[in-house]
Each structure stands twice: as structure tokens, then as C-alpha cells.
């Protein structure tokens, strides 16, 4: 069964460092998303991406965040200068079409900022 894969599964970094989280969406999917979940809290939308540009972003997705699809398979989330409050589980998700199909989530990347 096709799946969304994320790396790393866990990353520990120092405050102020740059972090890049990697995702490989399902191969025929066209819509890509990042969500985050702070420990013990609900899942929050960060950004959606289609046709090599951001479709929508939340208020959480400020200038410290960026996304990129550097090649035909990877979809990355970059945090330029991490803060303590960026510590969370980050989930990548993908979907075949905006109105059709199910949203598939990856296993998540846990980011710990010290």
C-alpha cells in the first residue's frame, strides 16, 4: 500500500539552528500539506502546497517557515531559526486531488528544540 514517508523520525536541535524535515508524498498525489502537533494538543494546519506554490498557510506559518519541492518526489519543511515552542510532531500529508480522495498522513517527525 502506498504511503507517505517522513525523515527523520526524531530530531534534536539547539535553539536558533535551522532544521529541514523531509517528506516523500505518495507518488501520484498532487496536493501536499504540513501539520504539527504540540505534545498533548490537537493537530494544527501549517501549509498546503500545489503546483509548486503555497496554496494556503496558517498564522503559525510565519517567515521562519518555508516549504519546497526540490525534485519530483521530495517535499520539505524548513524552519530557519528554531525556537523552543517549535518543539512538536510534524506531519506531512498528501492527497490526489483537492476535492477527491483521502488525505494520507506520514508517521511524523518529532522535533525537539533545546
Amino acid at each position, binding site marked *: 500500500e502506498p504511503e507517505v514517508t517522513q525523515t527523520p523520525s526524531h530530531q534534536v536541535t539547539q535553539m536558533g539552528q535551522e532544521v529541514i524535515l523531509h517528506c516523500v508524498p505518495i507518488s501520484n498525489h498532487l496536493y501536499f500539506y504540513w501539520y504539527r502537533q504540540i505534545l498533548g494538543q490537537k*493537530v494544527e*494546519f501549517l501549509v*498546503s502546497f500545489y503546483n509548486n506554490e503555497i496554496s494556503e498557510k496558517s498564522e503559525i506559518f510565519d517567515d521562519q517557515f518555508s516549504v519546497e519541492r526540490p525534485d519530483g518526489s521530495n517535499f520539505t519543511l524548513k524552519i530557519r531559526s528554531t525556537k523552543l515552542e517549535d518543539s512538536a510532531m510534524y506531519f506531512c500529508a498528501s492527497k490526489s486531488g483537492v476535492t477527491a480522495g483521502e488525505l494520507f498522513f506520514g508517521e511524523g517527525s518529532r522535533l525537539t528544540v533545546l
Partner: protein
Amino acid sequence: ELKVEQNPLFLSMQEGKNYTIYCNYSTTSDRLYWYRQDPGKSLESLFVLLSNGAVKQEGRLMASLDTKARLSTLHITAAVHDLSATYFCAGETSGSRLTFGEGTQLTVNP
């Protein structure tokens, strides 16, 4: 802006009992999703509800959607320990952005 509220947030129940989790949402939502999350794990899709009156069942779980009342329910029948997890509902708006509820942490006791 879509807001999604679940209740209860915590639910402790005995094996064999029935219970319902409620999910209210504030504005029109294209779809309503139910997810299961085990501790430290990803989100497992349980149900996608598309239209008013939709009812879906899988094993001991049944989900329904009332778009007029802006309410979805997840009914648990004859709970077993394996159902212990956190359950999230999420509404989808245009562009397929999901807004999640706070989650219901379910504990099924033997």
C-alpha cells in the same frame, strides 16, 4: 473560520459498554473526518463522511454526519481494550485544509 469542538475530551469506559463521542463544527464543512491516534504515532484514518445523513461502520465503530445540526458522532459499541486511543474529528474546508478538534482520549478498562 471553521471551529471544531469535541466532547468529551476524556472518556474512561468499561469493556462491553457503549458510548458516543460528539463533534460539533461551526460553519459549513466539505467533509468530516475521524482519525485514531495511538500515543506517539501518526493519524490513522477511520472514516470520511461526505454528505448529510452519511453513516459508516467499521467493526465496533460507527460514524454519522448531520450537516444541518453541524454534528458528527462516533459511536462505540461493546468497547474492547484495543480501542483505547485518542480520537480526533476534523472538518475540511475549501482547499482541503483540515481543522481538528481537541481530541477525545478514550481509555477502555477491563
